[in-house]
């Protein structure tokens, strides 16, 4: 099984750089939830999407029940992003643009 960033270098860098507590976060191209997990642990609410349905299913399965309550997952590409204006405080684009 492939594991990306088992040492957490990327999530540690983001965590040190910005305050996610209470924020509304959108995870663009969430993959199998590397950054979604960080956001769900810190933020107030998270919207996460990815064009790959299998990745989204993996992402859902990887979160704890508590974290899962904060996250709304969708399957679509960034070009299909259709959300109300000025809704999110932070957008995470991990290897996705």
């Amino acid at each position: 099984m492939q594991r990306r960033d088992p040492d957490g270098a990327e999530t540690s860098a983001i965590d040190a750089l910005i305050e996610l507590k209470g924020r509304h976060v959108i995870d663009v191209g969430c993959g199998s939830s590397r950054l979604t997990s960080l956001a769900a642990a810190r933020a107030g609410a998270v919207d996460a999407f990815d064009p790959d349905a299998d990745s989204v299913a993996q992402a859902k399965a990887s979160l704890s029940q508590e974290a899962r309550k904060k996250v709304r997952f969708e399957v679509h590409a960034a070009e299909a992003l259709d959300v109300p204006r000025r809704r999110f405080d932070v957008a995470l684009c991990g290897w996705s643009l």
Partner: protein
Amino acid sequence: VPLESVVDALRRIHSALVPGGLLVDTQPLSPRPPASADGRRLGALDMREWCETVAAVDRLFDKVTGSLYSVETEQRFVVTDMFDSGTEFVESVSGWRGTHVSAALGERAAGATPPLTVDQEVRLRLLVRR
């Protein structure tokens, strides 16, 4: 990667963010990231095509979307990908966009002792919505 779709995505994200909202963008940037197993270097992936794509997106960003975001800060660090077998390594990295695996590296990976790793330099940019 269709560059127009990247610009479109950046515009959509801009619209979705509150004024002063933050965009965290991370991208791998190593043209020849090293692959290793059991502390030994097996060779390097050829990701020059991917790096050209990132450079093209950067140029487009500067021209088209610079008015949407300002770059607050930039950091670089190394992210490791780990694989449980040589077969998995070759199958996975061959599917990465703009990435080529030489036959020689594939052969060395097939006979290597797991875990196999790839170390990539990653750029993190913190952008602020204008």
